[in-house]
């Protein structure tokens, strides 16, 4: 199928990256892909269900601290710590989702923010577990099981991230194209109607929030052994806002868009700050320009350009059409 070809093509390109990029470029690319996973996970909520979360940093930070702690204090190999951290997060997120979905609209967003800030406050104080404001440092990439060493090196870890991202992408893609995904889109477009059709939208919302947080935590769980540390910056609301920016700038409701948005965001921020101290200014302006003039994001622009498709979605909503 055409889509699978696209996915395979992208995967091959990514696999060849170590041959083309210098080592520090690879480091940036790895981090971009990890953030891409985080952004994509948020897209499930924002783009497909219109649940705008201001607290996604909580998923990222929790995943990072969980896998970091496991790697520092147990002898679990990296390949076990990462999924355990993600699953734990997804599990806890069910409870958080249950509370947050009590409300909707702006109140929902504020609840997610409240939870994230609460987690931030706790992480700051619980120095014995989280290292407080210093965080966890010296997180190792423990090899195994069965002596599997290949993912521990820099390029090896990169391939691990690529594999996880591609797998997550395929999973999300299948999810949003399934009947489950159709219900999500129904909730996004008109929740009242979806309820009238007999669906328990609350359950669907809880499910997608839990999955979204779980995948976000997976990204965080990858980050800890990547960087070797986890700190409270990962939980701060500023990061939540930045992930939201990545989703919107990349193109919400498309899964690929947010990944591009993450890469764009990280690259621009990194390079701009090499040139000028006022990078945040240009950054904010670029972002505002996207919101105003290109709401369907980078992916939407690219698609429009290459397909020369003049039937573009109207400025009816921020969400790029469900394609």
């Amino acid at each position, binding site marked *: 199928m055409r889509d699978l070809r696209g996915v395979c093509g992208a995967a091959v390109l990514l696999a060849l990256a170590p041959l083309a990029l210098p080592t520090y470029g690879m480091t940036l690319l790895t981090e971009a892909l990890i953030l891409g996973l985080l952004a994509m996970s948020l897209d499930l909520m924002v783009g497909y269900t219109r649940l705008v979360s201001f607290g996604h940093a909580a998923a990222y930070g929790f995943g990072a601290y969980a896998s970091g702690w496991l790697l520092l204090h147990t002898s679990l190999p990296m390949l076990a710590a990462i999924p355990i951290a993600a699953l734990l997060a997804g599990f806890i997120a069910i409870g958080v989702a249950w509370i947050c979905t009590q409300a909707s609209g702006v109140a929902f967003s*504020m609840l997610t923010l409240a939870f994230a800030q609460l987690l931030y406050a706790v992480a700051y104080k619980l120095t014995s577990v989280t290292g407080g404001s210093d965080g966890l440092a010296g997180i190792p990439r423990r090899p195994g099981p069965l002596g599997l060493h290949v993912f521990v090196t820099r390029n090896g870890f990169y391939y691990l991230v690529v594999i996880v991202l591609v797998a997550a992408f395929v999973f999300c893609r299948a999810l949003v194209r399934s009947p489950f995904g159709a219900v999500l889109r129904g909730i996004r477009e008109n929740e009242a109607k979806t309820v009238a059709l007999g669906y328990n939208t609350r359950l669907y919302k809880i499910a997608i929030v839990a999955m979204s947080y779980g995948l976000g935590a997976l990204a965080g769980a990858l980050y800890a052994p990547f960087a070797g540390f986890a700190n409270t910056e990962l939980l701060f609301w500023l990061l939540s806002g930045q992930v939201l920016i990545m989703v919107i700038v990349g193109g919400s409701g498309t899964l690929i868009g947010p990944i591009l948005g993450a890469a764009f965001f990280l690259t621009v921020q990194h390079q701009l700050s090499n040139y000028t101290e006022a990078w945040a200014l240009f950054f904010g302006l670029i972002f505002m320009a996207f919101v*105003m003039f290109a709401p369907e994001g980078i992916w939407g622009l690219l698609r429009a350009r290459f397909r020369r498709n003049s039937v573009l979605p109207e400025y009816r909503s921020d969400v790029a059409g469900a394609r």
Partner: protein
Amino acid sequence: MPLYAFLVVQSVNALSQAALLFFLGVGLTLIFGIMRIVNFAHGAFYMLGAFIGYSAVRLTGSFWLALALAPLAVGVVGALFEFGILRRLYRRDESAFLMVTFGLALVMTELIRLGWGPEALQVAPPPVFSGIVMLMDEPFPTYRLFLAGAGIVVALAIWQFLERTRLGLLIRATSQNAEMVHALGTDVNLVRSTVFGIGCGLAGVGGVFAAPLVTASIGMSATMIIDAFVIVIIGGMGSFPGSLLGAVLVAFVQVFGEYYLPDLALALMYLIMLAVLVFRPGGLLGKEA
């Protein structure tokens, strides 16, 4: 210090803090109530008020002039922003406002840093309120009394403005049914610009008042924006009395909570917000969500 004296002093402290929080929250709630815009840049407008206030004091030597000029300037900036940028987004999803005001916050913070430098700047309180009174045998800054009083005055003024003046009536009507107001011949766009300008101006007032207590600094925006949201959510987004209630509640809980439960100080505010959102998602005085 005997208990009643302690309670009195702490209560006055809390009231002065509530005044600051109220200035910050009332603008945010007005903007949301009338325009359904979540203004992420509200903390940046507050900060702008503090910095313009600083410059106004340096230029004119008068805190009172600064108090009059700075909020006006901030209000104008806000109205211009609404006119130039927000107006294009009304047909869009609510999240567009969130995004664009978030971007504005980044831009404004950086512009302020470029304009005034990264250091914190001192703003002295007006000489007439730079002294102390003995409250329960302990020195108490008159500036805080002034602040508490100013909060009450401004709250009353806004209340009367909304209830008694024509513009206030238009604002209240627009929040309930913008189309009808438009059909009756009023330029709704003008009302919106004015409201946004007034909301930002109120944040600017808060900034000028806060500057003698915390100095004008770049970090102001980030710390205050969360506080602003918490007050407004607790009180009810869009509810003017709600912002007052929220400010008073948060201030009192913080002041007394910090004393008796200092370890929970950071988490306290979020716990209240959570509790309110779970049991009354519209806020204490807001409409049901």
